[in-house]
């Protein structure tokens, strides 16, 4: 590997379609692969894509849609669901000396605790950031990376961090390219041998169908019947809105309100 080329690793999971519940490529992970592919195409950084989990036929179908994005190879650490993948992934990322790990924030199935990036970062003693939409710049000589992070209200924040690093991709990142069946057929899934005896067991918790969450009711702490009656029947009426009839004054009033809300 050339010294000024990064070793980029994308971690991908098996997604689940929210309606049909069929296995598919996970939306966030596909965005991570898209980002990785862009890096590989624009600056010839080296990209490897890795999945950890049991290689069932359903999983193979979902993984092939990542291959269909134009990958030559997808590595699979074959680990049964009752074992913890964290330490296996840690060892793998360490062994291939990856400088940049790109992954989704949260899985689409399973307990979706979104803990994996943090556990990996802790085990590897490297920084982790969440909600990334874009890589702005990679400074190889100083081993710095500049990122764009999604904030509520469509705002973006710029963050600079030191490599190696784990970044988790937000749904606001660039949409992934389509998966092509032809490309999926030409790519290959390579199993990587894992020492299963060293892995911790995890308790597989039963998944129950989500029950409907109760809606919050308006609490009425009225003491008298009259108050209760009023609270039950009162309509949300005009909350004292101001009316202005002159265009010039009106424009000024709007302008002042926007100033007051710090939008101008």
């Amino acid at each position, binding site marked *: 590997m050339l010294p000024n080329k990064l070793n980029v690793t994308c971690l991908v999971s098996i997604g*689940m379609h*929210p309606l049909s519940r069929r296995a598919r490529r996970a939306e966030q992970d596909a965005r991570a692969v898209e980002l990785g592919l862009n890096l590989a195409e624009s600056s010839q950084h080296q990209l490897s894509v890795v999945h950890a989990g049991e290689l069932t036929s359903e999983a193979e179908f979902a993984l092939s849609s990542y291959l269909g994005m134009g990958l030559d190879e997808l590595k699979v650490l074959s680990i049964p669901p009752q074992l913890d993948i964290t330490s296996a992934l840690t060892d793998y990322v360490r062994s291939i000396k990856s400088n940049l790990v790109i992954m989704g924030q949260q899985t*689409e*199935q*399973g*307990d*979706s*605790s*979104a*803990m994996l990036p*943090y556990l990996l970062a*802790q085990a590897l003693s490297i*920084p*982790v*950031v*969440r*909600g990334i939409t874009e890589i702005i710049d990679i400074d190889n000589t100083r081993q710095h990376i500049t990122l*764009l992070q999604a*904030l*509520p*209200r*469509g*705002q*973006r*924040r*710029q*963050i*600079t*961090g*030191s490599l190696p690093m784990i970044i988790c991709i937000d749904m*606001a990142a660039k949409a992934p390219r389509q998966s092509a069946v032809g490309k999926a057929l030409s790519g290959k899934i390579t199993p990587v041998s894992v020492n299963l005896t060293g892995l911790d067991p995890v308790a597989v*918790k039963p*998944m*129950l*169908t*989500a029950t409907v*969450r109760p809606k*919050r009711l308006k*609490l009425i*702490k009225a003491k*008298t019947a*009259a*108050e209760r009656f009023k609270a039950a029947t009162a309509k949300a*009426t*005009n909350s004292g*809105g*101001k*009316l*202005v*009839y002159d*265009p*010039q004054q*009106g*424009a000024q009033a*709007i302008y002042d*309100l*926007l100033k007051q*809300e710090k*939008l*101008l």
Partner: protein
Amino acid sequence: MSQHRRRDPRVLKIIRNRLHPLHGQYVDSSTIKQFGPSGLLRKFPHRVGTIAANGRRRINRLGGHAPSFSMSQPLEALVNLPLHQVKQPEFYILVVLDCVAGRLTEHDKDCLGFAQMLANRKGQAGAVLAVIFGESKDTDLTLFGIDRLLHITDDAVQGYQPELCCEYLSQIIAQFNPKHIIFPDSIFAGADLGRRIAAKLALSVATSAWKLVEDELTCRASQGLSDIKSPLTDVILLLEQAYEPTSEYRYETLLLDIPKIAMYKSSLQDDGLVEVDPSQIPLAEAGFIIAGGNGITDWPLFHRTAELLGATKGASRVAVDDGFMARDRQVGATGTWVSAQVYIAVGISGAIQHLQGISRCEKVIAINIDDSCDMIKRADLSVIGDSQAILAELNQLCLQTKKVVDDVA
């Protein structure tokens, strides 16, 4: 001055005396017998009697000669809640608050309510220890269930400093050894910080938790399609509206000393917010929207104004159907549900399908020629008049200010 309404004996006397010259001023003629054009006696059952201070109607049978008092402002209920004190806490429940822009969010208050329940259930007497990073603008924090407060105002925690916040939290956890640590599972900070600290200190964690029965938490999983049960964990990331905020007591909110952090070098640096093109922001996320409807004739003016104000553009269904705006800009029941901080509706009548879409907006400004339309009823500020004239004025106002700023620069 007392807030109680007083009787004026002089007025009462005038009212009793039908021959007094001022009698007409004080007596409500509507309660006196009136005959309609057909000669039938008119009755006004709703006007009978007065509303007393306790909110009940009082009917006086003195027939027209009784004093009529208008309903004054209801007496302000004095908030005089009992103080909840914890002298010697048996244990602590740590709550790390988001405090977005210096104010507690509803989510924060839910978490505090949940923490109070954990601290006081089964006859225990724990204390809720809240942590706020950065400034706090709330004037009265005593109502929300904070027994002890650690307010970290260190300049270094401004902006995005998750690693430094984690460092503080580790120290706090080491010092107070809390029984549970609660975070709002929110995009602001809680979701990130909570997971960080759980990974850092290898604590057990429950994410997206929304229910607690006895000692069993229920957590959402798989895109909200499944629930999983988990025993009570060290770190609990709570979903919104998982628990009611406190309302029965005031709390001490004692400020505690903040632990000292040794020299610390973060591997992440916050370079600040980046300017975003408002037209690129998805409508659902946008904080400032100007939407146009059927009352706009000069669309170029609308677009210019939106760009000058730096607002994201939206539209009513009619404007979209007529081809003036793209389909993805439609606000309302069949379009996007928006949650803007400020929403300006220009020439939009406020059909229910449209109002549904803006129900979560904070401030609504209406510009409309018709001062009786439904949008005006929803709006906090309404400007009545031709939308073109008002937009042109607004446009000019922005240009003027811009020019002044440019001249100064």
